[in-house]
């Protein structure tokens, strides 16, 4: 790939480092990836069609009625949320382009205007969520701090059936590799103490019968995971890199 004149490249970042008026951000030797699309992946649409909520995807003929009425796209102004486009990418099988929207796609608020209006009976809202699930199951979006927090939260909750805020906070700090300033810590500790949530470690709250219930819950989560893998491989899916 060629080295391209800087002025021609739109760099996807807002922070810039300038020293004495000279931009030293260091993106001079920007490499462009080829824009040429070289393959079509039928596995995406095959999997989506195999799902009870996704089978109407193949009806779509790209008229744009759904996007025209989409409250996120029009009223809310979230221009990258375009259900028509998501469906096309999944239908034709442009995996890489589709994955760019792995997070955006979940912002649908399920107002169902698209389903009401679709002239071909595509259950747009359901299809969009199925596409989102496909992306999630096959790698999803790059993990964000929020995702990591969600993970820490679930694990924490599964331990005793009740949240241990102080321990959650410590875990999360460790995950992100940073600590809060001492003043902030003291302030939060005081608040936690006042609200009775500082009971951590051996003093932590417990849930009666949690050992049994927690095991059932863990078993259920494992079962869900097995199901999604099975459905992916049954559709000849990528099964690929797990989240």
């Amino acid at each position, binding site marked *: 790939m060629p080295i391209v004149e800087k002025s021609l490249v739109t760099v996807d970042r807002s922070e810039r480092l300038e020293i004495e008026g000279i931009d030293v951000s260091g993106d001079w030797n920007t490499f462009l990836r080829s*824009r*040429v*699309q*070289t*393959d*079509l992946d*039928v596995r995406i*649409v*095959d999997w989506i*069609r195999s799902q009870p909520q996704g089978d109407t995807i*193949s*009806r*779509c*003929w*790209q008229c744009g009625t759904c996007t025209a009425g989409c409250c996120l796209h029009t009223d809310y102004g979230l221009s990258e949320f375009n259900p028509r*486009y998501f469906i*096309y*990418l999944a*239908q*034709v*099988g*442009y995996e890489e*382009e589709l994955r760019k929207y792995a997070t955006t796609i979940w912002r649908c608020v399920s107002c169902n205007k698209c389903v009401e209006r679709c002239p*071909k009976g595509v259950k747009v809202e359901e299809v969009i969520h199925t596409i989102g699930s496909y992306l999630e199951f096959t790698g999803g979006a790059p993990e964000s701090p929020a995702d990591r927090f969600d993970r820490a939260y679930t694990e924490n909750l599964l331990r005793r059936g009740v949240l241990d805020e102080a321990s959650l906070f410590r875990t999360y700090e460790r995950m992100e590799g940073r600590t809060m300033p001492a003043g902030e810590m003291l302030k939060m500790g005081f608040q936690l103490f006042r609200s009775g949530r500082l009971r951590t470690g051996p003093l932590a709250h417990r849930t009666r019968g949690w050992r049994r219930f927690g095991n059932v819950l863990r078993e259920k989560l494992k079962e869900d995971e097995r199901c999604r893998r099975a459905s992916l491989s049954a559709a000849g899916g990528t099964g690929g890199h797990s989240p």
Partner: protein
Amino acid sequence: MNPILVLGAGPAGLSAAAEIAELGAPTILVEREAYLGGNPKRWHYSLLAPDLRPSDEILGPLIAKVEGNPRVQLHRSTTVTKAERLPKGFRITLKTGDALETQEVSAVVLATGFDHFDSRRKFEYGYGRYPDVLDFKELEGMIHDDRVLRPSDGKPPRRIAWILCVGSRDLQVGNPWCCRMGCAVSIKQAVEIRQKHPDIDAYVYYMDIRTYGLWEDLYWKSMQEYGVKFIRGRIGQVTLAEGGSQLLATGEDTILRRPTEVPFDMIVLASGMEPGTGTQEAAALFGVPVGPEGFLTPNLSDMNPVDSGLPGVFLAGAATGPKAIPDSVTEGMGAALRAYQYARN
């Protein structure tokens, strides 16, 4: 009454000859080829859109109506070389091999049909150079014989692309009109192939899909039931992929707004309809005006689509423009009636 001449034994001509005979008038049916049935027969069309019935089921009964009909005089491998206008009708010279024969006819139905666009003229697509680039009329024959294999190595294809509007809606080749059936026939082929070989992926590259009227059903079904994929954009060129075993279709996905270079095992060109050589000859012979596209021009295409405006000369089928088989059969019937009325008075 002198017999009525029907020129061309495709769907329109067969239908016209059968109806004239049914009305009780003698008919001369002249066909340049050795067989009856026109282009559908010539290229071994498989199932016919929109009802997906085998072409033999539709043409068979039409052929049976004229073959062995005592009122129909059949001339195969015959052309009309001369036509002199008489006070009523024409004196025509028929040429079969080297034998010439003169007959007087009271009216003429021109059902001289179309020719498929010669895809070699759209050289960017490599038809004639790459064996796995096929014209869709050839694929018809393959589907008909259930032998959908790559001509280059005889292996079954895994992924096929159809390119619509080859030699249609294209000023570069001088054909700005729509062929009307390319969409439906391509989609029908994709459906037939997906029915028999679900492991073959079928992609249709389109600008718009013109499965007009009730044919829309075929288009919908192809997506919903057979998973045929539609990619918007016209392919710019076809080349050999690296290694030489696959074809590379280069185009723009106009929805994605990105260039695409996708490998395919087989590429099928939906070649358009052009006025047949027979149609051009007939126009000269009987003095029928032709439009800028080269098709015969009806006098009033809305009120009298089968009248040429010249006394005793009637038109039917794809000689007057791209037409589907049901429409050609209907026009054959209309032209038969008009010719009969003219000949009887």
